[in-house]
């Protein structure tokens, strides 16, 4: 070795920021999160406007698992099984979807303050929903239209970006443009809407909420979450390489032109399906991955699962608060922003994220 005594390797171990979580520690954090999520779901089952005693909920849960001979009363069972449980599961799936999509986009765009609706999924869905409400299409059609326009907006952004050039920067720019475009379309729909009934309906939809969520939505969101999440979780280690940028990725044999469409398609499916059911709460997908990063460190192979569980817990908590704390239900979009904004600033300050 050529290194002579006069040229010693630079700098002995100086005290510097070491990564927060060692492997076992981050695994433990994930376990805690999963435990907290199950506990949260049980609490959320219990909480609500119709009072149900704790032992009733527990008896019902045991009945479902086959541990008790007799389940809960018929009325209790109806409320738990057909009202609260679907809504809880939908909140969990939406939280997981948006947070996973947000974490994946943050890697793709190499920036911690990117949200999963960056490419227009939310504003497209918002326009689709407004249009459906304007033409009185009904709940299911509104959701389908919202989903379709969310996908359409991102497809448009993607097609335009191809003509601007390769890489993520053109994609980001065309995403910003498409978002502005569909937001303008939504405003036009609002202008055309009848201020007595349609306009409030549109405004309320855009504020977001799970008020109208049903069994049917549960099946749909379950399928889209599965399709969108599995590929992203499979390539979670490669996402670390993607997050270093195109040059590094190609030098390490990772073809960006192949992996980028996969990430965009999966994240868009997750975002559009969530937003179609619960309105414009894409912001969750910016907030939660940053909270998860503070817990398990920057590595995406750990960040993706942690974001999913934490996002599920977060949306569940906020939705439960929204439906039970006040006499009238508060749109969760408002609650998210009220709770999330100070929280995000705190997180970013603590982490000293390089933006």
């Amino acid at each position, binding site marked *: 070795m050529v290194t002579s005594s006069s040229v010693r390797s630079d700098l002995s171990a100086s005290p510097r920021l070491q990564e927060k979580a060692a492997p076992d520690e981050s695994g433990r954090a994930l376990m805690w999160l999963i435990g907290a999520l199950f506990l949260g779901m049980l609490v959320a089952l219990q909480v609500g406007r119709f009072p149900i005693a704790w032992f009733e909920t527990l008896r019902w849960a045991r009945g479902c698992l086959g541990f008790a001979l007799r389940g809960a009363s018929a009325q209790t069972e109806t409320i738990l099984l057909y009202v609260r449980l679907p809504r809880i599961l939908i909140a969990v799936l939406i939280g997981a979807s948006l947070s996973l999509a947000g974490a994946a986009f943050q890697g793709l765009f190499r920036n911690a303050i990117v949200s999963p609706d960056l490419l227009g999924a939310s504003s497209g869905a918002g326009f689709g929903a407004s249009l459906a409400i304007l033409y009185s299409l009904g709940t299911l059609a509104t959701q389908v239209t919202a989903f379709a326009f969310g996908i359409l907006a991102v497809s448009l952004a993607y097609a335009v970006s191809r003509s601007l050039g390769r890489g993520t920067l053109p994609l980001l720019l065309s995403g910003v443009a498409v978002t502005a475009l569909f937001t303008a379309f939504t405003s036009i729909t609002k202008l055309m809407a009848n201020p007595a009934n349609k306009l409030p309906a549109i405004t309320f939809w855009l504020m977001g909420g799970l008020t109208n969520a049903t069994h049917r939505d549960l099946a749909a969101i379950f399928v889209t979450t599965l399709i969108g999440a599995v590929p992203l979780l499979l390539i979670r*280690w490669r996402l670390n390489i993607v997050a270093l940028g195109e040059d590094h990725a190609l030098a390490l044999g990772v073809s960006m032109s192949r992996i980028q469409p996969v990430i965009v398609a999966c994240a868009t499916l997750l975002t559009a399906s969530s937003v179609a059911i619960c309105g414009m709460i894409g912001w969750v997908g910016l907030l939660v991955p940053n909270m998860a990063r503070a817990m398990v460190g920057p590595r995406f192979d750990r960040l993706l699962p942690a974001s999913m569980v934490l996002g599920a817990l977060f949306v569940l908590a906020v939705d439960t608060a929204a439906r039970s704390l006040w006499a009238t239900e508060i749109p969760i979009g408002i609650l998210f922003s009220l709770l999330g904004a100070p929280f995000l600033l705190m997180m970013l300050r603590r982490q000293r994220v390089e933006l």
Partner: protein
Amino acid sequence: MKLAPGATERAGKSKSNAMRATGLCIGFVAEKRGWFSARANDRRTIADQVTFELRTGQSLVILGPNGAGKTTLLRTLLGLIPALSGTVELGDVDLLHCTPKQRARLLGYVPQSQRFGFGFRVRDIVAMGRAPFLPAFALPSNSDLAMADAALERLGISHLANVSSAEMSGGEQRLMLIARALVQQSPFLLLDEPTANLDFANQVRVLRHLDALSRSGLGIIMNSHSPGHAFACGTTAGFLDRKGQFNVGNVADMVTEERLSAVYGIPVRIVTVETDEGPMQTCVPEVKSR
């Protein structure tokens, strides 16, 4: 000092011990890209007829003035931008038309330093060098991490393994990326101005490491702004001038006072200095001391 596992034996056993560029023409061509398409024949040639051959254990230092296209040449060899014409072969592999994965097994790349926004640990970044050998859905195993540790050890930066890459100095970052390229186990290493933005001592550290790697059997191609680097760690020097001509040959034949003065347009002297480790040649531009 241990060798990084595989680096030399790999180069020895396969036929990939010579890299050959023939009639390579580098530059930019505007692609036709759908709706708002650029003009189809918007093509700019930077250098024509770049031809060289480099074997493992040799190192090529590419020199030339700013804007001559040194970085473009390197990026073309790496497949980051397409070549306008010509061929680049490594053994029997056509580097311009192989998959990124194949190429990453043959060429390691050390880009110029940049921000590492998310602050991954150094060890995790070095372990990414295993990517060309891992299936798409796999995570690095313990043996992959052990290779990363061995590479860090080889470059003398083991103490940095758990440091966040966002908190490193420029010199440490360069060594980390060299370590990552070593983990790639490729017979050839391409470095884009490995000493740029480094202080006096760190430049020397990086050059010494590169010289050692080259002597241990790696083929090295690097860009440099400092012709003296050819003496320090090059066996071969290539000059890329503003007219798009590429001349390559032995360092002693290529790096001469006449050529340096002609290429850079300033008077340059080559001097020999006696040091503790023997005579050392270096290039001195004529700037009068005050």
